[in-house]
């Protein structure tokens, strides 16, 4: 009798172990393990996925991308062109009991700015010069020059507890103010977080999250289909029909071709326009991405980004017009060097080859050269000789035109292939213009200018695709953050 009972106990135990996590517990499979759980040091998707739930920022965003106050009580105010004042929400504590106040903000800002700290996130904050405490719940942040996107930058800076962040073990035991608190990190295996009982905001529905790390997309898919995972990232478009639920939402990534406006056949604006007319972007979205991508709106911006110009749309697919323009420019049959890489971005090589195919169809002779990523970067960043066309996928986490435009649109930017002084001036004035209406006007102008000059072939705006278990309900977010507090188990 006893032994039978024991067997039954063991079997029930086994079933409990084998069953997917309980009702309000979910398992999320990420592509890579966090290298650290210090939220201020790395540019690391795995780290961000976990810490976005443990830590908070002064500014937040709604799921559709609107900037709203987070730990700040209201939107920051400009007190002079270089000083932003932020009022803080009162009575908030870190999970270890430390107070969240002006000291914590000043500490967090200075920590990330410290050159000795070697933060990889520094490029988001390089305009910040100083942070000063005014009173317990007021902070002033001083920038080098006028910086209109400081509120957007604050949405990227996680607030850390002043005392605990000095602990050498801080990177393994994160403590934030967020809706979830850290429980355990079994290196190589998982990270576990659970709902923080004293959270200042709305209580989240899901009580416990286990993050698993599976780099192979096929294995991630298998885990979702076997019921081991509730949410997987970067689901390949071709698998969306196989999974219990797939959600897709317009993301932050824009594949483009950078055209050399200063030399070669692409020096002629008519040739650059022809290269745009020649490509059937809709077919790319349908054929390569199974529809999980939108045709780019003739600009390096998604509709949710600051600076998006509603008046500008895509170049239509018109191969006849392309041929006519090429003929007019005397560039029919010209050879075009196309630089790309393989395996870095979703369908990167396929896109380059498809675009080259369209160019060939209008009578050009594209020479596709696919390089290993390091060598590819040498070409992308080469300031002396620019290839006729360089493929790149631009990602813009700040959701503001400044980052992408400074890098690709502006003459002298790390990946730009034009020397248009007017365009550079528009971007520079927008960069330091703190008046929203004027700043918008500058960007509208810049978008229009680059579009008319066809400095790029704008291809697509890629959607983020997630695989979900049957029981999970989550609409997704435009900023690609996986905020568990917005998820529910059905």
């Amino acid at each position: 009798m006893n032994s039978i009972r024991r067997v039954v106990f063991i079997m029930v135990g086994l079933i409990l172990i084998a069953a997917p996590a309980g009702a309000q517990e979910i398992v999320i499979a990420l592509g890579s393990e966090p290298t650290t759980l210090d939220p201020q040091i790395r540019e690391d998707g795995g780290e961000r996925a976990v810490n976005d739930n443990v830590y908070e920022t002064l500014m937040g965003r709604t799921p559709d991308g609107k900037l709203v106050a987070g730990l700040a009580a209201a939107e920051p105010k400009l007190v002079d062109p270089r000083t932003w004042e932020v009022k803080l929400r009162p009575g908030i504590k870190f999970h270890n009991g430390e107070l969240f106040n002006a000291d914590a903000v000043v500490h967090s800002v200075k920590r990330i700015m410290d050159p000795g700290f070697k933060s990889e996130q520094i490029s988001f904050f390089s305009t910040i010069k100083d942070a000063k405490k005014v009173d317990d719940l007021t902070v002033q942040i001083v920038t080098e020059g006028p910086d209109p996107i400081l509120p957007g930058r604050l949405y990227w800076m996680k607030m850390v507890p002043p005392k605990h962040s000095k602990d050498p073990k801080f990177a393994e035991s994160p403590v934030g103010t967020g809706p979830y608190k850290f429980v355990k990190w079994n290196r190589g295996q998982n990270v576990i977080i659970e709902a923080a009982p004293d959270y200042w905001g709305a209580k989240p529905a899901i009580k416990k999250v286990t993050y698993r790390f599976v780099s192979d997309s096929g294995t991630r898919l298998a885990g979702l289909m076997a019921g081991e995972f509730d949410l997987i990232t970067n689901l390949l478009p071709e698998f969306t029909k196989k999974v219990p639920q797939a959600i897709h939402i317009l993301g932050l990534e824009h594949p483009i071709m950078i055209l050399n406006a200063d030399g070669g056949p692409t020096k002629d604006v008519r040739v650059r326009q022809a290269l745009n007319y020649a490509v059937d972007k809709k077919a790319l979205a349908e054929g390569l991405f199974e529809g999980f991508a939108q045709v780019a709106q003739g600009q390096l911006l998604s509709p949710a980004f600051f600076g998006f110009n509603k008046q500008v749309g895509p170049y239509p697919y018109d191969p006849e017009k392309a041929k006519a323009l090429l003929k007019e420019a005397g560039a029919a049959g010209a050879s075009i060097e196309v630089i790309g890489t393989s395996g870095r971005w979703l369908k990167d090589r396929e896109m380059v080859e498809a675009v080259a195919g369209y160019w060939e169809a209008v009578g050009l002779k594209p020479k596709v050269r696919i390089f290993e990523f390091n060598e590819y970067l040498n070409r992308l960043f080469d300031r002396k000789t620019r290839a006729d066309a360089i493929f790149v996928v631009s990602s813009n986490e700040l959701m503001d035109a400044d980052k992408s435009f400074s890098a690709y649109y502006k003459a002298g930017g790390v990946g730009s292939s034009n020397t248009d002084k007017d365009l550079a001036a528009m971007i520079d004035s927008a960069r330091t213009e703190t008046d929203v209406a004027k700043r918008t006007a500058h960007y509208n102008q810049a978008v229009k200018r680059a579009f008319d000059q066809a400095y790029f072939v704008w291809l697509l705006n890629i959607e983020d695709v997630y695989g979900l278990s049957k029981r999970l309900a989550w609409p997704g977010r435009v900023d690609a953050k996986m905020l568990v507090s917005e998820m529910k188990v059905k």
Partner: protein
Amino acid sequence: MGRFFLKRLLQGVVVILGVTVLVFVVTRLVGDPVKVMLPLEATAELRAEFEKQLGLDRPIGVQFIDFLAGLTRLDFGESLWQRRPAMTIVLEKLPLTLELASLGIGLAFILSIPLGIIAALRPGGATDRGTVFLSLIGLSVPQFWLGLLLIVVLALQLHWLPTSGIGTPAHIIMPTITMALPALARLVMIVRSSMIDELNQQYVKTCFAKGLSFYRVVGVHALRNAALPVVTLCGWEFIRAVAGYSVVVETVFAWPGLGLTAMQAIERNDLILLQAIVFTVAILVVLINILMDVAYRAIDPRLKLT
């Protein structure tokens, strides 16, 4: 005896140093970690600044002397990607890879002996042809595909095993099989051919004539003589498992060992971590080679330690 090991050890040290220096030079020629670490849109000034902070802007000679000084203390510095001492990461991951490689190659070894002998008993017979055919399949199947196939059948359809990860004994079954199969295929072929050679030797006939039992002749006398190439291959398979197969198998099964780490370090141009990994694997290779020399001499006393 002592001189033999001294000589081997010295050779080993030269190999390890050679490999380490080679990796130092090659990784620095191939890529610039800062380009990969910072977002693409980061400005050139910021990149330069970051390079300075990481000490990668110093002349390569200075970096090399620094590197050699660290090497004497087994200190490779902090991994650029993980910001932890590179050796700590390697020592954390190595046991998992050794576990997987030992189980996989151990399984292959244990299965290969009986399979190879059975095939060798009647060369050209049905069992022999069957074994050769299956070995060829085992050799031809790509490991990543085999791994995914196992996941689909054993985890997805039958629900017997978890798809990936670590934690319970059930997690290690599929990675072990995937690791073992190509090694098994090669080992079976080698056991088979050396057994066929041995069974045709005069001494085997003598043994039978003396009236020794079949099992004693085949399983002891012939097998012992046939074992030399098998042991060689086993050592070689183990090295390949640690330094090669582990990359594929660990990626497919999300097994957080050295192979997966090496793969990620390469993707991120983490020179420091790569040096530590290659150094450690080089030591392992040298050690296994020395171990194999010892094993030879234990199996075949005719070989002298010179």
